[in-house]
């Protein structure tokens, strides 16, 4: 019902369903696997799936940014973090808290609440066929109404880079 509504693009729905299944499986593996490196590699799968969903949602520029920033840069940072904190090769015990079962009811109840609210609000709203947003429209938005936040973000990135160097430096 959810994945194949009528009068909408069936191929798009099938693609969405396949990617969504892979993403949910990979996300579940990230939080349950016993191997830290495997968790990082499953996270790559989730991030690539999110990028594919952005393309389905007509957001090409965001998808390319996602691939470059997350899969290119953030994953390298994570792998360096894993190596520098000397994670064991292979499966490792003690990755979970002693009371980790508490997370299951919290997650399930939160999902139930969110799903109820979403389905209540958007029952069978159909997103029509859309042309992709042109990237120049995005740049017009960023560089005129959102110019001040954009400059603020660049300062945040500068401060974060300097802060990371200061924190991680040996002295």
């Amino acid at each position, binding site marked *: 019902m*959810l994945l194949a509504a009528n009068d909408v693009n069936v191929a798009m729905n099938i693609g969405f369903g396949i990617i969504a299944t892979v993403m949910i499986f990979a996300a579940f593996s*990230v939080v349950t696997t016993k191997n830290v490196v495997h968790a990082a590699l499953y996270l790559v799968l989730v991030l690539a799936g999110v990028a594919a969903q952005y393309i389905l949602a007509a957001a090409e520029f965001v998808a390319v940014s996602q691939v470059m920033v997350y899969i290119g840069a953030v994953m390298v940072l*994570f792998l360096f973090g894993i190596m520098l904190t000397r994670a064991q090769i292979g499966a490792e015990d003690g990755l979970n808290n002693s009371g980790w079962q508490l997370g299951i009811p919290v997650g399930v109840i939160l999902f139930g609440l969110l799903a109820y609210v979403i389905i209540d609000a958007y029952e069978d709203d159909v997103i029509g066929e859309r042309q992709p947003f042109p990237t120049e429209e995005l740049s017009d938005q960023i560089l005129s109404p959102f110019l001040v936040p954009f400059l603020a973000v660049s300062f945040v990135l500068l401060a974060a880079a300097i802060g990371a160097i200061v924190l991680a430096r040996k002295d």
Partner: protein
Amino acid sequence: MLAVNFLLLAAVLFCIGVFGVIARRNAVLVLMSIELILNAVNLNLVAFALMNNNIEGQVFALFVIAIAAAEVGVGLAMVLMIYRNRKSIALDELSEMKG
């Protein structure tokens, strides 16, 4: 495509991320779970941009991506410092600040 598809997928990712933050003890894995949460929010923003035919959602998604990159950089630097001082990144052992 139904509007609820994207939103439900994002809700699933968000809840898995919340579970990871609660359940995991290794600081790097907690940071990965936070990435899951941020990606769920981004997916929502892009879906709302599509639903309302308004590109501002994508602008916000780009800002969130930039902030997430900064967050991971600082967070991993802190994890490295904790590891250097204590030879462990188990979060439940960091309890000196407890009153």
